């Protein structure tokens, strides 16, 4: 017997996009709608807390910034794959979101005159990264979580693991989920749903991501017949700290930090003569990998990883302590280096997924009644490469939009009675298939093997041969007998949720690699050694991956161009 829980709007994910959506749905419906936030972690633990450096918005037109400039920088950063109508909507909405968070209590860093401070970030023509020290995502999460406590019509389902999307007659009905505390399997039914489940960065082990950033939400959408868009575009941030990839924010370079090779050379002058270390992330990461491959890097003995130096000393002790205090804390604690004195060992690190669940400009998926927002979704404002400080911003803008849209849709509609038979099949799949399943392969070793092949063949530089090999490996891993658990208790069984995560990782990794193999050009973060040039004639289009019986089936869709025709990119 499957337990049934009913609400009007069901939001999956409690990061920036999910919380912003919940608040918008709650306030725009004036208490009339009953909203649930379902999250596999506790509500303030989502990966959004790890965002560090800034949130982009035009706040100082009187000093020369403009919406036009923010839009152009974003489109250029995207290597012209962003949808320009979405970008225009995005930049116009952002100043209001910064003020909104100020009004809800966010401790933005301030100028002497009391106004909100901003700083430089990579790929921008104006210092428009709004910041709160170097804990921007953390403070945004705190502010939204605390603001959500005001609404009695927002209910949190904390540590509930969503396993599938339930739909009937082409309409959204709800989700199936496991309550981690008790192991109860339930269906949550609602009129409207929003997927705000974040990115899939844990496809890589050297990642800035929290352990929780697995593609459960993306895989659920894919299995429900909704395509994933542009998944081959994965951002490798230039500065992940050795050994585990903790993010060293781009704000370090925005404040004056520089990248150096083992000869002490400021090598970015070769790759981006104007913007140097503050070129867009794809450009800087390629510069770094070229330096490493040509033998001008260092090697970390313990991990075997190659790295370069990020030197913060030009910033000066005072600014490091006040504006980059968390970075200093992280470097001392996790690497034993005080950046006031010595350079940090960094290398390109998986940081962001430009692709996601295919949605339109309002964040609506192809399934009636279901929206997606934030990193889980692909609108797309990021195209082939996202600019720093635009991801937290996107979560806010499309969190708000989807919250309002879902509320508008839900008002006046009846609640669904049931979700059909799929939930029984899902219960069988999970409990008969996995909980009572058997097999010889350790699922954690499947995860390790997947992460290894992704790091080898789907990293900063790619080749057709490498990607084909990766695709074969992923399919071999999928065929192994890892769908079983050792933990036979229903209580807080992370062994079970881990196996479900590994299954989702394999599905989504297959989409990433298949899309990358098909795209025979280099654009933004997708750099093919065998096709080094951008090919607008054939490839200025979005990839759409539908789930098929033999793996992903690829289709393509047009890019919306309003003002900016593609030209060659220089930084």
């Amino acid at each position, binding site marked *: 017997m499957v337990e049934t829980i009913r609400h009007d709007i069901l939001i999956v994910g409690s990061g920036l996009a999910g919380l912003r959506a919940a608040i918008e749905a709650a*306030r725009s419906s004036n208490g009339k709608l009953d909203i649930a936030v379902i999250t596999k*972690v*506790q509500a*303030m*633990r*989502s*990966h959004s*807390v*790890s965002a560090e450096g800034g949130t982009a918005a035009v706040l100082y*037109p*009187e000093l020369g910034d*403009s*919406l036009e400039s923010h839009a152009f920088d974003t489109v250029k950063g995207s290597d012209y794959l962003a949808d320009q109508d979405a970008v225009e909507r995005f930049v116009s909405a952002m*100043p209001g979101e910064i*003020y909104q968070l*100020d*009004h*809800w*209590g966010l*401790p933005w*860093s*301030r*100028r*002497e*005159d*009391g*106004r*909100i401070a901003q700083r430089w970030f990579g790929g921008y023509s104006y210092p428009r990264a709004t910041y709160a020290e170097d*804990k921007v995502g*953390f*403070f945004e999460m*705190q502010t939204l979580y*605390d*603001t959500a*406590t*005001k609404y009695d019509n927002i209910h949190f389902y904390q540590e509930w693991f969503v396993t599938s999307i339930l739909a009937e007659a082409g309409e959204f009905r709800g989700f199936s989920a496991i309550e981690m*505390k008790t192991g109860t399997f339930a269906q949550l039914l609602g009129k409207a749903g929003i997927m705000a489940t974040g990115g899939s960065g844990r496809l890589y082990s050297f990642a800035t991501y*929290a*352990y*929780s950033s697995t593609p459960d939400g993306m895989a659920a959408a894919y299995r429900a017949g909704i395509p994933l868009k542009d998944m081959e575009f994965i951002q490798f941030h230039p500065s992940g700290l050795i*050994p*585990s990839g*903790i*993010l060293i924010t781009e704000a370090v370079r925005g404040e004056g930090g520089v990248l150096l090779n083992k000869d002490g050379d400021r090598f970015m002058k070769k790759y981006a003569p104007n913007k140097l270390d503050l070129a867009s992330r794809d450009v800087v990461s390629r510069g770094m990998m070229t330096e490493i491959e040509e033998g001008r890097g260092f090697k970390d003995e*313990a991990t075997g990883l190659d790295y370069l130096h990020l030197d913060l000393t030009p910033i000066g002790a005072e600014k490091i302590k006040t504006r980059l205090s968390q970075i200093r*804390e*992280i470097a001392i604690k*996790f690497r*034993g280096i005080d950046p006031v004195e010595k350079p940090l060992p960094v290398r390109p690190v998986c940081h962001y997924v430009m692709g996601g669940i295919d949605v339109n400009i309002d964040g609506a998926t192809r399934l009636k009644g279901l929206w997606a927002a934030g990193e889980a979704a692909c609108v797309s404002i990021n195209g082939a490469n996202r600019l720093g400080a635009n991801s937290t911003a996107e979560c806010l803008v499309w969190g708000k939009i989807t919250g309002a849209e879902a509320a508008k849709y839900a008002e006046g509609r009846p609640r669904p009675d049931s979700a059909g038979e799929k939930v029984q099949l899902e219960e069988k799949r999970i409990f008969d298939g996995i909980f009572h399943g058997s097999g010889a392969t*350790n699922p*954690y070793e499947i995860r390790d093997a997947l992460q290894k092949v992704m790091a080898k063949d789907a990293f900063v530089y790619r080749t057709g041969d490498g990607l084909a090999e990766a695709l074969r490996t992923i399919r071999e891993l999928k065929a192994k007998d890892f769908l079983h*658990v*050792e*933990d036979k*208790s*229903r*209580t*807080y069984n*992370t062994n079970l949720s*881990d196996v479900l995560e590994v299954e989702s990782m394999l599905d989504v990794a297959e989409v990433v690699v298949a899309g990358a193999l098909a795209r025979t050009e280099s654009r933004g973060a997708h750099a093919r050694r065998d096709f080094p040039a951008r090919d607008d004639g054939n490839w200025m289009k979005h990839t759409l991956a539908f789930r098929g019986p033999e793996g992903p089936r690829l289709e393509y869709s047009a890019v919306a161009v309003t003002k900016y025709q593609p030209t060659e990119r220089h930084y």
Partner: protein
Amino acid sequence: MKDLKLVVQRFDPVKDASPKMVEYAVPKREGMTVLDALLYARDYVDHSIGLRFSCRQASCGSCGMKINGRPRLACYTQVEELGGEKVVAQPMDNFAIIKDLVTDLGSFFDKHKAVTPRLVREDGEEQERPTGEYLMTPGELSKVLQFTYCIKCGLCTSSCPTVATDERYPGPQALTQAYRYSADARDQGGAERIAALDNSHGVWRCHFAGSCSYVCPKGVDPALGIQLLKRHVMTGKPPHAKDEASKVWKAPESGR
């Protein structure tokens, strides 16, 4: 390198009568955190170990537990700083155990919610439909900044002797957040928020053991926050009067 002796308190209340300590051998590596060691044991030795974790960089607050007798974040504790030979992991005190190292923080979040942890303003329309910024100088910001670093990990509350004896006491986390919002230059709800804590289960229950400040991994000083709250209760005045709260700087209508 010799293996690390990792001892984990195991307990599933649904099937076990009492907790037991189980030892795992974990190969050590340079820079290993207690979370790394626990994940090694869970991934390759015993998949059933229950633990809660996420960001691994001391930002999310998931992995609070008692390590070698003291409340700490597992991700933020190096094996080496504990001597490098033996690590004993137990769940936090003052919370019910869900399983192994995972505790139930439900009442902890409820207490946080009960102190009105958000800006309260009298300009409701402006607060929800902003026309600009609430001005706040760096000096005003610095008065509350350390208290905003709270990651809600629960370590302070788990270490508090008063929480152990009075379940109605809000605890250091919630009280500190009451101070944080009341002292924010933009807030106008201080008087009501502070008055609600002036009772026998409120601020006066704190007898200043200071363990909260000792264990906080983020440099927050909850003991100080609570003493500051007491001062405002005593004087009957919030940190600032309502009409002294931040004024709105209006953004120009157009020009972007």
